[in-house]
Structures are given as C-alpha cells and as structure tokens.
C-alpha cells in the first residue's frame, strides 16, 4: 500500500493537469445535472410551439396595412353611394324610371358604383397577395407545429394549457363575424400574436393561428371570386348606364363590400361562462391522466 502511495505522491506534480481536467469534467457534469438537464426536462413538460415567427408577424402586419389602404380608398366612394341611394329612395324614384331627375340620380349612382368597382379592381390584387402570403405562412406553421410535431394527446394538453394558469387568462375570441373593419381585425390579430411571447400561452396561440388561417382561406376565396365578378359587373354597369337602372344585384354588391370591409354584421349573442373561483378545490384521482 505504502509504495503505491508514495509512487502516487511522487507523480502528483506530473498528474495535476489530468486531475484538473477530471475535476473540470466532474464540475461540468454536475452543472449539466443541476442546471441544464432540469431546464431541458422543463422544456419537455411545457413545449413551446413556434406558430408566429417574425416572418408570419410581418405578413399579418402587411395584410393589415393593405386592408387599411383599400378601406380608405373605398370609404369615400361607398359613402357617396349610400347618399345617392338614400336620395333615390327619398325622391320615390323606384318605379318612376321615366322621370328625368330620377334618371340623373340613377346615372350618378351607376357612375359611383363603377368608380367603386375600379378602386376594388386596382387594390384587390395587393390585398389578395397579402392575404395569400399570410395564409401560406400560417399553413406551413400549422402543418409543422400542430400537424407533424404533435399527437392528438399533446394537442389536447396544449389546448388545455397543462401547467399553465388558464383561469387568469381570457379565452381568445373565436372565429366568426366580428363586426369590425378588416384592417382592425388584422391589427387585433397582430396585437394578439405580437405580444404572445410575453403574456399568451401556447393553447391560445394554437386557437388564434387556426382561427386566422381559416379566416384567411375564406378571405382569399372571397377576394378571388370578387375579382372574377368585377369585370362582369363593370360591363353590366356600363350597359346599365345607357338606361340608368339600379339593379338589386348592384345593391347586393355594395352591401357585400361594406360587410367585408367595414364589418356591418349582426353579431350573435354570446353565452357567458360561470365566474372563476366560485368552485371548490377539485379532487384529483390517482386514475386521472
């Protein structure tokens, strides 16, 4: 035993560097065990989903800006249309097509309508591009984050917000006719997701992303159909101009545009949930998932 010890002591100076390295490795392992691994395992219990990276946020912001520009352009034309239509009704022009005054109002109305269609045909391609970009980037994120990286079970846990305090957070407003301007809707979306990293949890983001994606799909479809219709509507109105007729179709188009852009919707009643904190502490069964 002693010679061995002596030999060891004698070799101490030479073996200091390897021993220091070994000590460093132990230290590193301890650090990993105490700090890094718990952090990694925490990451496993609360998975982060990357639904709104900067590129998606930029697409949403851009769509909002384009929508605002389109609204500004159309607002004036639609306001004039409304005024002229009211005048036409107040003058009891319906059924009095031969009256020269009524014919003049009808022609003015038709001209404003054509103006509105022109503005739309000018702005819609930008709008369509912006909406389609947002739709495509959301589609990629949804497919990758919720479709390929999650099972139905992990999706359920994400939606329930496992380990998160749901009671304090208000639920995101679900899809539907919001009764607000298109640009404001995008502003809302942007605000919702841009502040998400600070105060929104994964479950809300999954719902917001899904809501927005389906909304974009509808908007994109609607824009494409509107673009197809504009050429036909323009031709029809040019023909009508010769006769000074206000068609129900014309009225319908104007109402449709107003509804999409300015949110003239009838919002349905909402069902309230019970106030939080009014229930007793829940029993947790050992059988519970």
């Amino acid at each position, binding site marked *: 035993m002693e010679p061995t010890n002596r030999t060891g002591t004698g070799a101490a100076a030479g073996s200091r560097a390897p021993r220091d390295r070994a000590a460093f490795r132990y230290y590193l392992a301890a650090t990993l065990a105490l700090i890094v691994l718990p952090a990694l395992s925490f990451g496993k219990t609360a998975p982060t989903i990357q639904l709104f990276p900067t590129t998606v946020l930029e697409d949403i912001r851009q769509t909002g800006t384009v929508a605002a520009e389109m609204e500004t352009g159309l607002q004036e034309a639609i306001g004039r249309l409304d005024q002229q239509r009211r005048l036409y009704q107040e003058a009891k022009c319906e059924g009095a097509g031969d009256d020269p005054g009524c014919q003049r109002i009808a022609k003015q109305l038709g001209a404003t309508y054509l103006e509105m269609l022109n503005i739309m045909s000018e702005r819609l391609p930008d709008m369509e591009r912006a909406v389609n970009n947002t739709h495509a980037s959301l589609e990629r994120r949804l497919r990758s984050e919720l479709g*390929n990286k999650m*099972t139905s079970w992990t999706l359920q846990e994400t939606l329930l917000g496992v380990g998160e305090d749901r009671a304090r957070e208000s639920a995101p407003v679900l899809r539907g006719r919001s009764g607000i301007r298109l640009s404001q809707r995008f502003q809302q979306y942007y605000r919702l997701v841009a502040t998400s990293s600070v105060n929104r949890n994964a479950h809300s983001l999954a719902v917001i992303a899904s809501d927005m*994606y389906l909304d974009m799909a509808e908007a994109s479809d609607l824009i494409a159909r509107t673009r197809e219709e504009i050429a036909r509507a323009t031709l029809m109105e040019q023909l009508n101009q010769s006769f000074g007729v206000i068609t129900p179709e014309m009225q319908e188009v104007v109402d449709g545009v107003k509804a999409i852009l300015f949110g003239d919707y009838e919002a349905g009643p909402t069902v309230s949930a019970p106030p939080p904190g009014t229930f007793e502490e829940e029993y947790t069964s050992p059988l519970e998932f």
Partner: protein
Amino acid sequence: MNPANIRTLVLLALTGMAFALSGCATTTADCSLPRTASLDVAMEAAEARLADGCEAEFDRYYAELLEIAEGDPGPENKRRFSEFLLAATDRGLLSTRQAERAYNRYFNVKYVSLMGDYNNCAYTCPRKRQVLTEMEAELLDKERGLLRVSQDAAGYYRADRLFQETELVLEATCTACGAP
C-alpha cells in the same frame, strides 16, 4: 301403481322443483343491486356482489351507480367512483387502463377519445370526423359525470370549450396537412 312408489315419485318431483326454484332465486338475488338512493349503500353492495362471483355485471353496476349518483350529487362523488374503480383494479376485475378510461371518460376534462400516439397529420386527420363524433359522445358522458354527478360546472365548461377548440384547431391543422 304401488302407493309407496307414487309417494317416492311425488317426493322426488317436489325435491327437484325445490332445487330448481332455489337455484334460480340465488342467481338473481346475488347479482342484483338493492333499490337504494344512497350511493354509498349501492357501492358497498356492488363491491360485495363483484367479490361474490358477479364480475360479469361490472358494466351494468357502473351504469347503475352513475344513475344513483345523479340523484345523490356532490363533489365527493369523484373520489367515491375513483375508489370504487381502484378497488375493482386491485381485485383484478379491471386493468389499470380500463379503470383509467372508465374514470376519465366521466370525471376528467381531458378526452379519452383523443389518445392517439401518432402525429396528427398522419393519424388524427384521416379520421377527424370519427374522432369528433366520439368526443361529442364523450362530452355527453362528461355532462353526466362532471355536471350531474359531481356538480363540477367549471370542469364541464372547460371540457365543452376544449371540444370546440379541438374542432377548430383540427379543422385548420388538417386543412394545412392536406394542402399541396
């Protein structure tokens, strides 16, 4: 015929009938639960019957107990059902997985119908309609277990909202998965 033989025959017939009657009566009486409004009494009786050879009646007992619990509601019923299922697991009447499914289907916000182990694009989306139909049926059971048996309205509302959110998120996700 000899009177002694007749007597023997009558005696045999009566004995046979008595055996048959007593046999039928024993089977019916042993496996039926007492008519009671008390969940505790009904659970005790069910546990005794299960230990006494009526294992095959487990599903019927569980359904009857839920029915009785609806008339005797309260938050403590979750614990009662959990303990009943754990006892059944201990006796080997149910596997742990079966007990978990029976409990969570009625008394948990989470859905047993959403237990897939594979990714959503590959597994859940192709059977989305079926999954949602099963969730809807399970929501009815949760209405019974959480709302009517345990008076856990908050839990039931969460389960209802979870169903709505899952429907929305699956619609979007599955559309995204199927896109070119």
